[in-house]
């Protein structure tokens, strides 16, 4: 026969969609197969905890590449197809139904799945997760006026879900194991601002506590916490993180440690295998270390970089990590990765509802939390990527246009 095996893009989310699009943009004209576990063509997830959950946008609005567009790109799309094995020597993927799929080159964009709450009583409890279109619609169907909802996890997903179901009429409590909200991604002052926001909207926040078991009583569920307290729930939404879908890659001998390891161009150690998105841990040149990012931006830009590299024009990713959240119409944008910092500069007025916190580590700006201040992020990204020294007094003075700081 002599037919060339296809480039297979394994995983049909945000990263997979940008991978197939970019491969065609870069002139790859050979056979191209996109494999997705879900029934839908590629869609983006950010609106699922926001506009779609609130009912403001229909789920179809999240579709990135519909069947027509996939046809125009000459992509063979295989939905409802789960990859279970990888044989790198024979260059074939094993699928759940027992069949195989040969590849010439492989792009792994399998993303991540929700971490499940493993607790006594969990199987009988009305637990919902938020990752897919179906998850979002299922929560929206249950979230009605007076429904008591307990959200487990005070991170981005948990808080977005809490805000949305509260707007849909639920009585909401959020349980967070840490001492403050979103501690993994924002500084303490931002956490405090959002804690106030949620409390003002009637949400009960339980910090520094975690569920130990779930009890059924009289048609509702009682969430028992480590402190001994209990919360009654008709609906439990769990947002306690995700797990990268990298097991089949690890089984095939590829390096996996909190994500499938790739370089800044999306290459694995196997020259025929590339990867992008939530499933990967990449070396980030801006941060100077390896990170696994779960952001929309990374899924998009890493997939573009990896697809260009696969197609022959090597392209390195050099983004400063960035993400956003919307809670009760408040827009939060986060630049950099919170971690080590020794100084924070406030610009703007938290009382007025628009401000930013700029974090510095040994004199260099390393991150920003911007609340209703998207332009601050735009300038900060340039200050950071261009290594421009920043006068912190001027930075904190709203009378000085932020853009002036770009002049150094």
């Amino acid at each position, binding site marked *: 026969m002599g037919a060339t095996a296809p480039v297979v893009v394994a995983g049909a989310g945000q990263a997979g969609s940008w991978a197939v699009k970019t491969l065609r943009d870069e002139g790859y004209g050979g056979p191209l197969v996109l494999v997705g576990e879900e029934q839908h063509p590629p869609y983006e997830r950010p609106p699922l905890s926001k506009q779609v959950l609130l009912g403001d946008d229909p789920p179809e609005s999240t579709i990135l590449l519909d069947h027509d567009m996939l046809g125009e790109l000459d992509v063979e799309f295989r939905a409802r197809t789960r990859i279970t094995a990888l044989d790198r020597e024979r260059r074939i993927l094993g699928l759940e139904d027992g069949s195989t799929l040969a590849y010439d080159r492989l792009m792994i964009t399998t993303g991540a799945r929700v971490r499940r709450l493993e607790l006594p009583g969990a199987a009988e409890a009305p637990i919902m997760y938020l990752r897919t279109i179906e998850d979002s619609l299922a929560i929206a169907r249950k979230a009605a006026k007076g429904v008591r909802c307990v959200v487990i996890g005070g991170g981005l997903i948990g808080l977005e879900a809490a805000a949305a179901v509260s707007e849909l009429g639920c009585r909401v409590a959020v349980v967070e194991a840490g001492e403050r909200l979103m501690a993994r991604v924002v500084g303490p002052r931002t956490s405090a601002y959002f804690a106030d926001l949620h409390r003002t909207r009637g949400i009960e926040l339980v910090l520094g506590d975690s569920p130990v078991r779930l009890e059924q009583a009289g048609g509702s569920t009682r969430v028992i916490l480590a402190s001994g307290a209990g919360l009654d729930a008709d609906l439990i939404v769990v947002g306690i993180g995700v797990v990268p879908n990298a097991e089949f890659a690890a089984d095939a001998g590829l390096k996996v440690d909190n994500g499938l390891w790739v370089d800044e161009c999306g290459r694995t150690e196997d020259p025929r295998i590339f990867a992008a998105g939530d499933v990967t841990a990449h070396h980030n040149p801006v941060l100077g270390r390896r990170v696994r990012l779960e952001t*929309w*931006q990374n899924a*998009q830009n890493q997939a*573009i970089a990896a697809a260009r590299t696969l197609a022959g024009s090597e392209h390195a990713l050099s983004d400063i990590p960035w993400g*956003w959240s919307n809670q009760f119409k408040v827009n939060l944008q986060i630049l950099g990765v919170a971690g080590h910092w020794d100084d924070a500069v406030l610009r703007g007025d938290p009382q007025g509802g628009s401000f930013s916190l700029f974090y510095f580590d040994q004199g260099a700006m390393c991150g920003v939390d911007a609340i209703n201040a*998207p*332009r601050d992020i735009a300038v900060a990204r*340039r200050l950071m990527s261009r290594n421009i020294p920043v006068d912190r007094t001027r930075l904190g003075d709203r009378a000085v246009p932020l*853009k002036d700081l770009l002049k150094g």
Partner: protein
Amino acid sequence: MAGDGALEWHKVANKAEILNDEPLGVEVEEQFIGLYLVDGEIYAMDNVCSHEFAILTDGFMEDECIECPIHQALFDVRTGKARSAPAEVDLKTYPVRVEGEDVFVGLPAK
């Protein structure tokens, strides 16, 4: 850009309202239009991002490009060209005429 004969000119702003760093968003005939100043020239471009609904003039202007305030897509305001992901569709631009202090934008006649 539309042909000359089919244009209707609308006064949309005073020249002084459009600054290098501060583009101006206006609404004309139920259309959102952004006005930009680049190298002393005023340009008019559709003001809604072609990726998702966002008002571009709320974004960040640098050189000839506006950056979407939501997802950071870049558009060349002189040509409407989408310069970076996630935007893939170019935006419409409109002819601009300046008479004294008054800025006019030419829209296709209805």
